[in-house]
């Protein structure tokens, strides 16, 4: 993955740029981060202050909105909460369960398939990248009607975790297989042959030899899968019921109400945004690899 390696070593020192260049970079950073910072700052203020026209930036930040959102998950009862609405806390738990399980299943199944495709030469990479592109082409809205019909009437999986997890696994599999394939191709076959000589069977070779080598690929694949499951709204909205709803669904439900408590809704939004933000800072390199893999290297 050498696209991001900088220019050759003799050019190691950073070039001097003119101030206008840094001004541009600065403006871009402000533009990229501005809305996120604004959301964070709104989530730390009370609705009275948000609605107050003269409100300044100098108001003491408060965690009350977060306490309201998480009231049933906290170990203490916040004083300002008269009625604890358990929806958000529960939805947060649902979101975690659904995204984590679907990520794990997608990775295991995807890994096995990618390994078989590479080592046993079933289909060319062309077939897999074509079907990945085809899958990417299908908007979730297109799956809405059939998934609703089949899951409700034939599989009986509506309202359950397993129903939505099945959808997310299927949605992410083509991409995961495709990206893992490009990593597995790079694992030297000698490594596996050595393991076989030592008496390891196919499963042991796979889990003990291949998996550790393709860790970066697994990281990229898991972040992309988690993100889709964590952020998805449309199918979750159609399939899940009151008790299994995920956070995006509860957010949309609460903004249709007439007067919006911006502080609380922004706190919820912030909680939904935090895991992807953390991943971005930990693994931006892998994310960029995953993003560029399709276009830059073919």
């Amino acid at each position: 993955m050498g696209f991001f390696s900088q220019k050759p070593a003799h050019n190691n020192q950073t070039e001097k740029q003119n101030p206008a260049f840094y001004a541009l970079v600065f403006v871009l950073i402000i533009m990229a981060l501005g809305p996120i910072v604004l959301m964070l700052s709104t989530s730390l203020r009370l609705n009275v202050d948000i609605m107050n026209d003269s409100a300044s930036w100098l108001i003491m930040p408060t965690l009350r909105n977060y306490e309201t959102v998480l009231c049933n998950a906290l170990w203490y009862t916040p004083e300002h909460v008269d009625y604890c609405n358990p929806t958000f806390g529960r939805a947060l738990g649902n979101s975690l369960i659904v995204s984590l399980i679907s990520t794990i299943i997608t990775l295991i199944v995807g890994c096995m398939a990618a390994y078989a495709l590479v080592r046993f030469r079933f289909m060319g990479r062309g077939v897999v990248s074509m079907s990945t592109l085809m899958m990417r082409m299908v908007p979730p809205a297109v799956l809405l009607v059939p998934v609703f019909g089949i899951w409700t009437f034939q599989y009986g999986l509506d309202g359950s975790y397993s129903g939505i997890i099945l959808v997310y696994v299927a949605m992410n599999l083509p991409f995961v297989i495709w990206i893992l394939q490009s990593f597995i191709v790079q694992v030297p076959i000698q490594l596996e042959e050595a393991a076989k000589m030592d008496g390891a069977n196919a499963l042991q070779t796979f889990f003990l030899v291949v998996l550790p080598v393709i860790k970066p690929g697994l990281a990229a694949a898991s972040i992309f899968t988690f993100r889709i499951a964590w952020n998805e709204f449309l199918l979750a909205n159609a399939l899940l019921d009151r008790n299994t709803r995920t956070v995006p669904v509860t957010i949309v439900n609460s903004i249709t109400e007439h007067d919006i408590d911006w502080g609380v809704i922004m706190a919820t939004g912030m909680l939904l945004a935090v895991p992807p933000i953390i991943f971005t800072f930990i693994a931006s390199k892998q994310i960029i690899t995953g993003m560029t893999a399709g276009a830059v290297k073919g």
Partner: protein
Amino acid sequence: MQSSFNTNRLIPYFFLAPALIILGVALLYPIGYMIYASFLDWNPSQRIGEADWVGLRNYTFLLHDASFRESFFVTLKFASIVVILEMIIGVGLALLLDRNIRGMSALRTIFILPMMIAPIVVGLMWRYMYHPTVGIFNRTLKDWGFEAIPWLSDSWWSLVSVIIADIWQWTPFIFILSLAALQSLPRSALEASRIDGATGWQQIFYIKLPLMMPVLIVTALLRLIDAFKVLEVILVLTNGGPGLSTEILSLRISRTASEFRELGVAAAMSNYLLILLFVLTVAMFLYNKVVEKHAIKQQAKTEEA
């Protein structure tokens, strides 16, 4: 001996089976089901067996349905404007920022953030910023003594608002891909042109852009496909309104299914959308093949020179 041979032959199938089963059960079957359902008059309280076969009625109904045509048009308008603007801004920024500066990777990390955050949350942030009274835009306009802008309540402005939010979220995608393309260009070609005395602009137009073209086309294609899938941001911002001014097809499909309870019509609409996307993908794929061949020739030429 014989038995171990047999198990060895079965191993690949064993590794592939779970993926194939899941894809078949949860992806291929539903898509086939959708095609079947598009020929039915079906509402959500019926089992599919009870629905009446109506042939192509849903399709012909949609062709004559003014609001479907409106939303088809809105989708095309939204997708093309968004892709063109994002390509111009993203490629432009990549050309500007393709330098050896410290902190480039930090910059890239910051630019990915908008794409990683849930579209629902992006919609929420922008809806707050577009808020008629407490939103930052109208507040700033008022402070500077300008008229407030009806961001989400006017049919022209609401499309603009939706487009701005999408540009904020997705320009970084194009930026990162074109930056990667730029940095993988053959240094020799750039070096040679510099020695020949090409100016910065000449380098951009005669060397960098032509060599980047295959990547740029794939980037535009991926972005275009994704632009047709945008739903959550618009749902949160305007819910398709006012009127039908921002009601893109994905949104119309979901409303037809859940509000109007016409699953057959929604399925037919999904098919139209899929056909449209398929045609676009194939067209760009073929075009890319042509350009790629051209680029390889070009590259050979510049390397010879």
